[in-house]
């Protein structure tokens, strides 16, 4: 068992060496390329809804509902994207 442990340990160390070295290096290059892009143009200021807005927020979880809706919308968009890609490569009709 000790031998197996040593081999496993060496293997993991080898994989870690690759992922930490090469992977991090690759990630850093990609990050550098991404940083060349312009920064986000949105400058948002929070909307104040006042006490009535709070009342609505107390009764209905508006913020969470919108997050869930956006998330589902993202998944649907992803589904359609995958569908179109598969159709493009003629895997499906």
């Amino acid at each position: 068992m000790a031998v197996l442990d040593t081999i496993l340990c060496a293997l993991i160390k080898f994989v870690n060496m690759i992922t930490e070295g090469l992977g991090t290096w690759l990630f850093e290059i990609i990050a550098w390329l991404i940083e060349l892009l312009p920064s986000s143009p949105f400058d948002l200021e929070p909307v104040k809804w006042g006490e009535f807005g709070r009342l609505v927020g107390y009764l209905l979880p508006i913020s969470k509902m919108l997050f869930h809706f956006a998330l589902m919308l993202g998944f649907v968009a992803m589904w359609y994207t995958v569908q179109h890609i598969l159709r493009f490569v003629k895997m499906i009709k």
Partner: protein
Amino acid sequence: MKKIFISILCFIVFVSFVFKMDYKASAISVVGSNALKGVVIGAMEKSGIKFANKEAKEKAYQAWNMKAYEKWKADEAAGRNADLWKDFERIKTGGLNVSPIESLPGYGKVLVDYTFFGMAASIGGAIGMAIQNKQLENERLKYLDEKIPEYKGVSLNLSLGVSLASEFVSDGWRVTPVNGSNVKTDDGKPFSLWTILSPFDNDSAKHFYITNLEVMGDLLKYSFNVGSRSWQGEALNNDGYNYIPLSSIKNADMLFAYEAVPKIEEVPQIKIPEPLKKVIEVPDISEIPEAMPQKTPVEVIVPLDDPFGDNPHNNPYELPATSPGGEPGKEPGTGGEPGTGGEPGKEPGTGGEPGTGGEPGKEPGTGGEPGKEPGTEEPGKEPGTEEPGKEETPEDGPTCSKKVEFPKFSIITDPMSDSFPFSLPWDLYDIIEAMFGDMTNEAPNFHYVFKFNDKKYDFKLDIPDYFDSYFTFARGIILIGFDISVMFFFYRISKGGADE
């Protein structure tokens, strides 16, 4: 056609209404105050104050405003506001109905009428000048630091100002109108575009456009500014006025693009009205903690994957056992605070201390099981009663982590969150958060104040805490119902996911 007609009608009604209504001083002063707020906050930010959020800005501005109001009151008591009051009376005779708001201290009263609106505009202007002055001073200091060698004949007066010694004029430097231009201003005054011509070939200085050309007394020097924003020059030799229109100044090259010179002749002073001098100072808002950036302490758990690192001195098995009661494999005092461990019934110096009382075989110094407070081992468990055989000996060395560590994906996602267009998902989150983040689940508190027969009546409408748990449950149900309805919605519009 119908829509256009309705739009025009609405516009006419709106404009008539605006011009028909009485002008309240407060309405216009608030406009002035908003304009001033931008200037004040800008001045504060330029002076290095950082605001955590918009509320902090508001509070800082209110603090500034209160100080301005106190200053105004002091000036009023000393009779220094005579000119402002004169303006006020003049405007009042112009037919405008000015009604001060007595009930609003600070924000309301400071800018309550045209008097203070005029003063606010003056303060805004003075602050703008002060900021510009500060920037010029910074540029000047920058030149001083860099010790740029003297440029031929031209010395730096300020960062954007140049002085030209008369002896260099005789060497061929000339100040001439551009292409003999001699046109008139709107009010009929003749003016010329002036430029300085260098005797040296390909000298960029010849492209300087100048303002404020004047002879400096007995010094036989010509002083002028380059690229200044002031468009009206001084009188020169009784020939009229030298005006430099903005269009030419726009094209003027910045002086610090050239090898100009830090020979300080004099630093012009921006004249600030005496009563306003203290007001334009950035107030000390350190006494108002809510105006400063908020730092809410957040509990952070820092995972220690490898607490000993590569430092062999940190390896516990190399440390000598100093405690006489210490056991093999346990190192006394390798971590934790002294005096926190040692439960009753435990021998001092052996167990209970963080990093010593854990089970052998675990990494020493981590204080036993994760999440377990140091010194909270089961009572009655005497140190030394742990299973033998699991003790780590020096020969074993540190054990392998047996965990593949992938590079952190956050290396990529961190810059993505701010790089357009990859930032769009984060932006979407921010948009929703900005739009509806204020609609929290906190119970609202309605507070109304009514005035009746010169008496105030306060009404507070709260939702009792009793309902909190019910509403939490109701929100959960509503959320699930909403999710299901959205699923049906998508199902319907996508026709069950079938091909179109």
